[in-house]
């Protein structure tokens, strides 16, 4: 197929832009995973389905006629509280259980959220609104308004999370609790609550990821399986104990996935790119690009 050099460059830039847009979603999902990992050395396999469920909640609100940003804000708050409740009620009893039991509980949670969404909202694919419609931003042609907005939202979330952990006493206490629970309790930090708040934040961030992804991948109960996988890949690539490494990894995976899909393996098998990244990184550089080391919790 004859195509001019310019249009090939355009096509490449377009793919790159789409990769960045979804990469932002992966980045903040990876950040949510890291938040729980740092505190418990566990990966929450239910994170994706929790985010999907939050997204349905937001959809319900907009469907009732709520303005987008109000639905967005309420969803984030409700997800935060839901995450806390989930930690206190379901996850807490397994705090001292072996990894296998925790993984099984997380899988159980993900099945429950998937079933709940299917039961409440049905299994058909639905459109999800975006607040960023209209013409592409800044007069460029490579990135739709929603894609630009989504990247912006991801970056804002990253900045807010960074500021929260860096500058607020609660953020400091959460870092302390994750690092040294005993010393934290000795200065009066309620470590159990810090874990619960971590779950709440992860759920809230996941909700944002879901709401940014849904206009692109459409809303259905299985929408997050692939996204969670890419977020895993991003977290593993960047270093699962390093929030900003993981976020970088998320963006990188988004770009790599899109370019590989467009030029190398074909878009139908893009998920295997994530599989290859996960296995490859774990084999050759288990700590990821920016992680410190993997502490084996056998």
């Amino acid at each position, binding site marked *: 197929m004859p195509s001019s050099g310019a249009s090939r460059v355009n096509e490449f830039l377009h793919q790159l832009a789409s990769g960045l847009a979804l990469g932002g979603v992966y980045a903040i999902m990876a950040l949510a995973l890291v938040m729980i990992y740092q505190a418990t*050395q*566990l*990966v929450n*396999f239910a994170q994706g389905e929790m985010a999907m469920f939050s997204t349905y909640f937001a959809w319900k609100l907009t469907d009732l006629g709520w303005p987008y940003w109000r639905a967005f804000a309420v969803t984030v708050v409700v997800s935060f509280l839901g995450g806390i409740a989930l930690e206190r009620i*379901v996850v807490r*009893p*397994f705090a001292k*259980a072996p*990894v*296998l*039991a925790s*993984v*099984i*509980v997380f*899988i*159980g*949670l*993900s*099945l*429950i*959220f*998937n*079933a*709940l969404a*299917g*039961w409440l909202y*049905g*299994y058909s694919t639905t459109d999800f609104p975006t607040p960023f419609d209209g013409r592409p931003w800044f007069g460029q042609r490579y990135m739709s308004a929603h894609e630009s907005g989504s990247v912006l939202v991801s970056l804002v979330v990253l900045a807010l999370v960074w500021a929260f952990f860096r500058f607020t006493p609660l953020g400091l206490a959460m870092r302390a609790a994750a690092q040294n629970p005993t010393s934290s309790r000795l200065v009066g930090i309620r470590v159990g609550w810090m874990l619960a708040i971590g779950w709440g934040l992860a759920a809230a961030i996941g909700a944002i990821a879901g709401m940014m992804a849904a206009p692109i991948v459409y809303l259905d109960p299985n929408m997050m*399986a*692939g996204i969670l*996988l890419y977020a*895993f*890949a991003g977290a*593993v690539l960047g270093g699962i104990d390093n929030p900003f490494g993981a976020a970088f990894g998320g963006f990188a995976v988004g770009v790599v996935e899109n370019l590989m899909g467009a030029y190398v393996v*074909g878009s*139908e*098998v*893009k*998920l*295997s790119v*994530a*599989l290859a990244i*996960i*296995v490859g990184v*774990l*084999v050759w550089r*288990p700590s990821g690009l920016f992680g410190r080391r*993997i502490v*084996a*919790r*056998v």
Partner: protein
Amino acid sequence: MTGTAPRTLLTLALFAAALAFPFLASGYHIYQGAQVLILAIALIGLNLLTGYNGQISLGHGAFFAIGGYGAAILTVKLGVPYFLAIPLASLVCFGAGFLFGFPALRFGGLYLALATFALAVATPQILAYKGFDAVTGGSSGVTLIKPRAPFGLPLSADQWLYLVCLACAAILYFAARNLVTSRIGRALVALRDQPIAAETMGVDAALYKTTCFGVSALYAGVAGGLSALAVGFVSPESFGLSLSLSFLVGIVVGGLASLGGMLFGALFIEFVPNLADQLSVTFGESAKALPGAIYGVLLILAMAIMPGGVAGALRSALRWASKTK
């Protein structure tokens, strides 16, 4: 052990009942019976890995798929008879499992769960890959012909296939039983519970774990191959994440580190979705949510109150009964 004689009797009685079943039940029920046996084989395999050796796999559907596609391709495209195709396909699975076991050694625990989860999610896409269309049939899959009973035996195809499954299940069950009660089995359990101590006592962790992965995949492969014959069809969507997760549900409900319990696990994951299908006739689409909901709740409940699954509950009930006697 005092429990040995009754246990042998129970096993024989179950086997006799299973043998009689295809001559008493109707066609569809025989097919379902075969499915239960097939799932039990896969669950025994996964339980060797997860229950006994403590390696988490969320992606055994992939090995099930290799067995299924292997059997389909060998019989349909290459004309290999099914009784050779299944062993061959399961050997391929052993190889695949063994090879996957190598990187798995380095991950351990959580990371293995991550990697196998990725495998489970990616499997349907890989199976549907256009580049393999000629062999795998792409997204439409491969259709198989159900084998007939040999030597002019007066058995329907369903009955014959059921008996083949029963024979495979029985052989693989006893093989697994022997494996876990042997020195090797004890080493596998030791690597699960006391990895460092086991290694210092001279257990070659790498060899045992990768081999365990291979054997586990082989079981999944046999099950996948038999399933392809029983269903008469393989396609990418049947080997997705939900299949892998239902295996996990099966071993947890049946009982981690139990072999007999896998029959319960298999019955469970065969009939719960079935029940949901029947309910959806009356209750509509929302009944589709039922299996997932039941699975999820049971996984969590099992971990909270019944970590031994059905097998563990039965065992403690028997112990309680014999004490109160």
